[in-house]
């Protein structure tokens, strides 16, 4: 085993791991899969992989590529991935494409030409011209929409892409491994590799270590393509530089290398790809407790606009996390079969710094009984099979929009206070309304899809039942539906 990179704290654990996948959520919208697979599990040899799944639709996610070095020789000034992450203030990074030398500078700078296309924030850095038969790249629009592209002719050196688009953040690579759902990888050389790909809005950054017998012996590009398609469902994947260049960095505190580079130390490469992300504060205590206790969280107590709080795998029984003093978060995420209750009498303010605030229930049945203060439009995304009950009071006096997303069930049963212009939108799944949403008749109920189950009298400003959505007013005779206006699409139902 060639664990020569002494600063990698993950190595000891990785060396002893057996067929183990460790899943963590270090940042908002980021899932890390650390896989140590013995021979025969994935390929006929042991491999250590690090995979980052990044939600490109999350408004806190940003992308950055190595910029052009301007008038200096070559296209870029070389840099380790860790230095790149540090200098950019990013949280995640991987090495970029292959490269060639382009001279040195007067102060020890070493310049590189990138062997393939790169565009960074709309600025042209390097044209096509790697000369590989299946050269390709992934472009990210200004809104982070990913598209696999390739040159119109592999013998030309330009910035023309197929499909045609105006590149914004385009990282070129050596070989298209999966293209539009089809395996297009051809290389069968066994190496450490770096790759990037996507399915929908989920970006995947991939590294596999190699050249370290007994620990991780590398994969072929064909193996990587098949594995990433079968295990993660990728529709598009391109390989970047591999060998000793393969590096993945994460700055959950000080930037650190996650993998074990085969050179035994981190290589200084030409270009890099970085991701900006917001730190996820995850509850770590297998027990009930108080929100404000620092030791109960990774990364400290989440209490700031935009802060991300995750209630994941820590508990093995139903637990209550109490707010004994007010707290603020931009994201609250639940993901456990056991019930978390966010209780207490102090207020949890939902306040995003970018985009909208979000409460995501990925699995299980969870309760928010503490008072909620809605400062920003808030998306309540409840995944299929999950339930979120908001039993505490909701103060939406600033008239923001509450959006119900996801196929799961959300229950509103606490006292409601909504200001002028407020909306409750149901875009998917089921919303149960157990309390009067609009005693002040200021809130509009807009049903774009899914089902809404009204179980109490309502005083609403407007009711819009659109598309094929269904609103059911539960029998009982007293659940009188009052609204300023009622609009229904041809396929909608008010039952």
């Amino acid at each position: 085993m060639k664990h020569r990179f002494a600063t990698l704290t993950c190595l000891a654990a990785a060396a002893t791991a057996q067929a183990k996948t460790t899943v963590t959520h270090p940042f908002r919208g980021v899932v890390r899969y650390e896989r140590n697979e013995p021979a025969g599990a994935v390929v006929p040899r042991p491999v250590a992989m690090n995979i980052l799944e990044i939600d490109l639709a999350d408004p806190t996610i940003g992308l950055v590529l190595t910029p052009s070095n301007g008038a200096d020789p070559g296209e870029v000034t070389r840099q380790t991935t860790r230095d790149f992450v540090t200098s950019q203030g990013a949280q995640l990074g991987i090495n970029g494409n292959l490269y060639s030398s382009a001279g040195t500078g007067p102060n020890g700078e070493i310049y590189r030409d990138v062997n393939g296309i790169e565009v960074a924030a709309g600025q042209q850095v390097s044209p096509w011209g790697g000369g590989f038969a299946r050269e390709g790249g992934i472009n990210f629009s200004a809104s982070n929409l990913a598209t696999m592209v390739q040159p119109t002719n592999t013998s030309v050196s330009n910035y023309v892409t197929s499909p045609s688009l105006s590149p914004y953040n385009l990282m070129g690579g050596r070989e298209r491994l999966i293209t539009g759902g089809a395996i297009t990888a051809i290389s069968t050389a066994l190496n450490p590799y770096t790759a990037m790909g996507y399915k929908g809005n989920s970006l995947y950054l991939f590294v596999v270590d190699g050249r370290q017998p007994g620990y991780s012996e590398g994969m072929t590009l064909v193996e990587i393509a098949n594995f990433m398609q079968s295990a993660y469902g990728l529709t598009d994947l391109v390989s970047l530089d591999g060998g000793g260049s393969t590096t993945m960095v994460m700055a959950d505190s000080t930037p650190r290398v996650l993998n074990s580079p085969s050179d035994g130390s981190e290589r200084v490469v030409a270009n890099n790809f970085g991701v900006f992300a917001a730190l996820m504060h995850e509850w770590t205590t297998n027990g009930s407790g108080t929100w404000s206790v620092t030791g109960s969280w990774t990364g400290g107590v989440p209490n700031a606009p935009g802060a991300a709080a995750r209630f994941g795998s820590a508990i093995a029984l139903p637990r209550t996390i109490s707010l004994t003093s007010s707290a603020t978060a931009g994201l609250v995420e639940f993901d456990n079969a056991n019930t978390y209750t966010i209780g207490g009498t102090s207020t949890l303010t939902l306040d995003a710094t970018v985009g909208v605030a979000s409460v995501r229930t990925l699995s299980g049945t969870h309760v928010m009984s503490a008072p909620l203060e809605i400062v920003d439009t808030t998306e309540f995304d409840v995944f299929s099979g999950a339930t979120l009950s908001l039993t505490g009071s909701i103060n939406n006096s600033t008239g923001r929009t509450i959006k119900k997303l996801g196929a799961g069930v959300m229950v509103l049963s606490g006292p409601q206070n909504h200001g002028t212009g407020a909306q409750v939108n149901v875009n998917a799944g089921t919303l149960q309304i157990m309390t009067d949403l609009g005693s002040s008749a200021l809130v509009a109920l807009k049903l774009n899809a899914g089902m809404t189950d009204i179980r109490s009298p309502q005083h609403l400003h407007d009711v819009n039942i659109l598309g094929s959505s269904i609103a059911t007013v539960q029998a009982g005779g007293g659940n009188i539906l009052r609204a300023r206006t009622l609009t229904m699409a041809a396929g909608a139902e008010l039952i």
Partner: protein
Amino acid sequence: MNDNDLVVNTGSFPTIQGLVLVGYSAGIDSTKKGITSTTSQGSGGVTILALFDNALAGMAQWPPGSGQSVSATAIVGKYTYIGDTNMDGQVSAQDYTAVDANIGSNNINPGIAWFYGDTNFDGNVTAQDYTAIDAALGLGAGNPLAATVVPEPGMIGVLGLGMLLIRRRREGKAHAMQRTTKKDRDCGDRGMGAGDGAGG
């Protein structure tokens, strides 16, 4: 809406009535769109969301006496039996009164037609409108359909005021019809047109 009421403060009566009528079914029918009632469908369609235009009815509250004010231009729907022309949640002999008072009226404003006794929604009050009352007579007796928020002690009185205004225009006709018993009516429906015309 199951068995609940609907109040739309600035709605379009034809639009809402259209949604109710397209959603009505005398039996379970999950294909129905618009404003439907599973409760009604499950009871053979004897109930419906009976609508009126408050610009014509002038109700101050809904349900009456509930303390819940209602817009002067609201469209109000009460879940009740077809034939419950006075919207007291039951079908009794009193419901014949509206038909008696207004029989022969044509092209009635749909926003008030329910109170006129137009039980078949054709815009006219004819002998055929007795049919629905006959069929439903006794439904809700002792257990009237009503919003559970508040009893409706003032409802009949309030609506009665409106009906009185209607009756004044047809006083002679109304008096004649109010004396008619159900049995008389059952027997006389087929001859009522002639009798009514002779007495009018």
